[in-house]
């Protein structure tokens, strides 16, 4: 059995059509789940596989599903929403699954929707992912034509409709309740929780939102079982992980590896190590909203718990590399500018705080910063941190800033002292 279930049949240039996908074992999980398992059996299996969400937060997928009201008394229609709005800076893993194996995505949608007894599934896709849009729509058409979507799938009595919704573009749509507002045609402002989407989600109905990579694992868990899935991982949480590396390494890319592979193996072996003449200074383990780790952390296993113990988050598992000839202040400024632009504007600390921080960082990078500015930055890391804002956008933004202020403080001070960016000539 394969050790790379998600990408074994991924073909970016020419993905398998329904026929080809079926020939390599595709849609077997739909057959198994819909004709031999009750929805509750699928939920239990997923819970036992100990899969945690691959979108950034790492919540237990089985537990999330178990909050869904089930049975004849549950309100309908119920919805499954695939979060395919890959907008975390430095993240490029879901694109591989969406473009490379569109039928795997559709199969994942069907078995997952069945598990929560959803009537309709939406794939909420980034507007910029044009190739994925075309391929997913083609795969959906093929699945309808073959009877994997629509009414009474495989004579099971279960019916499901599936649509691709392309986003008009905003980072906050990755937050699940903001995403639901966007699906409803509104400004994507996060909703207050509770109620959670499982009880009151899309149009007030029970809804589950899951990441692309998370869901693509489900057919394989159904096909091969929880023990196989747990063994794929080097950690207590099951499965493989799509890891990525970008920045000045020799061979940037994406690789499906056992969950818990060390940062060293990913950077030095798979990404080929640093480009000639450059040294590693730090890395963001899983996108722009994770804390910097340093070369001291290279032997940390890139699993949920170990990365957290090291002071960061696994996030999306796609690393961004800081080399010794790139200015850490400039890099953080770029990320804070992103978060300031993408703040939805709903709550004051985020709307007002992030642009101010962007201005302070610009001043420091351009040699106009003062000691006082550093204190203001420190204070805002706390004021925009967890619990102080409406959603997780601002706390996410504080992760690279707060950790840079710790690990690269001397670089900030040098800009202020020398009144210039030491990396610019």
């Amino acid at each position, binding site marked *: 059995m394969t050790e790379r279930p998600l990408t074994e049949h991924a073909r970016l240039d020419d993905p398998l059509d329904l026929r080809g996908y079926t020939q390599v074992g595709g849609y077997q999980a739909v057959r198994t789940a819909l004709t031999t398992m009750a929805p509750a059996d699928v939920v239990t299996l997923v819970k036992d596989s100990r899969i945690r969400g691959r979108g950034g937060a790492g919540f237990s997928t089985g537990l999330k599903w178990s909050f869904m009201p089930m049975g004849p008394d549950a309100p309908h229609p119920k919805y499954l929403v695939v979060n395919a709005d890959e*907008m975390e800076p*430095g993240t490029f893993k879901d694109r591989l699954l969406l473009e490379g194996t569109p039928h795997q995505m559709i199969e994942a949608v069907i078995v997952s929707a069945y598990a929560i007894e959803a009537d309709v599934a939406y794939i909420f896709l980034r507007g910029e992912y044009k190739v994925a849009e075309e391929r997913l729509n083609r795969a959906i058409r093929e699945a309808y034509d073959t009877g994997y979507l629509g009414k009474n799938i495989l004579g099971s009595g279960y019916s499901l409709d599936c649509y691709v919704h392309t*986003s008009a573009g905003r*980072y906050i749509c990755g937050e699940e309740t903001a995403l639901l507002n966007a699906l409803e045609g509104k400004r994507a402002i996060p909703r207050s929780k509770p109620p959670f989407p499982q009880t009151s989600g899309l149009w007030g109905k029970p809804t589950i939102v899951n990441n692309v990579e998370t869901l693509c694992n489900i057919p394989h868990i159904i096909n091969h079982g929880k023990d196989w899935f747990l063994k794929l991982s080097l950690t207590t949480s099951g499965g493989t992980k799509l890891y990525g590396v970008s920045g000045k390494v020799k061979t940037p890319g994406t690789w499906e590896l056992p969950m818990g592979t060390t940062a060293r193996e990913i950077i030095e072996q798979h990404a080929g190590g640093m480009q000639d003449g450059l040294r590693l200074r730090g890395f963001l383990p899983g996108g*722009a909203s994770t804390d910097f780790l340093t070369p001291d952390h290279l032997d940390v296993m890139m699993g949920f718990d170990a990365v957290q113990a090291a002071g960061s988050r696994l996030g999306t598992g796609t690393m961004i590399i800081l080399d010794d000839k790139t200015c850490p202040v400039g890099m953080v400024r770029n990320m804070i500018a992103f978060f300031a632009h993408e703040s939805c504007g709903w709550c004051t600390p985020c709307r007002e705080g992030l642009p101010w921080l962007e201005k302070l960082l610009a001043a420091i990078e351009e040699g106009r910063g003062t000691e006082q500015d550093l204190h203001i930055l420190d204070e805002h890391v706390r004021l925009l941190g967890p619990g102080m804002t409406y959603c997780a956008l601002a706390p996410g933004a504080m992760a690279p800033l707060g950790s840079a202020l710790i690990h690269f403080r001397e670089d900030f001070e040098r800009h202020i002292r020398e009144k210039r960016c030491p990396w610019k000539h």
Partner: protein
Amino acid sequence: MTLSSETREAIKEAANHAAAGKKSACIDALLLAQRERGWIDDETIAEIAALLDMTVEDVDGVATFYNLLCRRPVGRHVIRLCTSVSCWVMGYDLLLQHLRDRHGIKPGETTPDGRFTLLPNQCLGACDRAPVFMIDDDLHVDLTPEKVDAILEKYT
């Protein structure tokens, strides 16, 4: 300027299909309108508002929220240059400089001949091939100033 009857019909269909009232077709309607002429003017906002039983202010609130919806005129082709962190590390500023020096456009500007509008864009999800940009629906990767010139040639 009013929408074509084709686009009006497509918007009406999206509105009828919407699960919870016409309003939920608002983003779809704006995207459909933009597909027709590249950007969304005030008349279009009013037309969509009338079609979906919404106020002009509500429609404009949605239109101005999303990055991919343009409320100002754009050229025949839109260049969306990724300005997020991996492309920053890999030197997208060289591309910006080149587009300014060689083609005379800064972010937010359109070439005098109306051929290209340059817009900064959030992470395009192709970080292993940085720096990158999209022109209209096409992604272009591993960019250098020299490559940019050759690519731009293809869009007339």
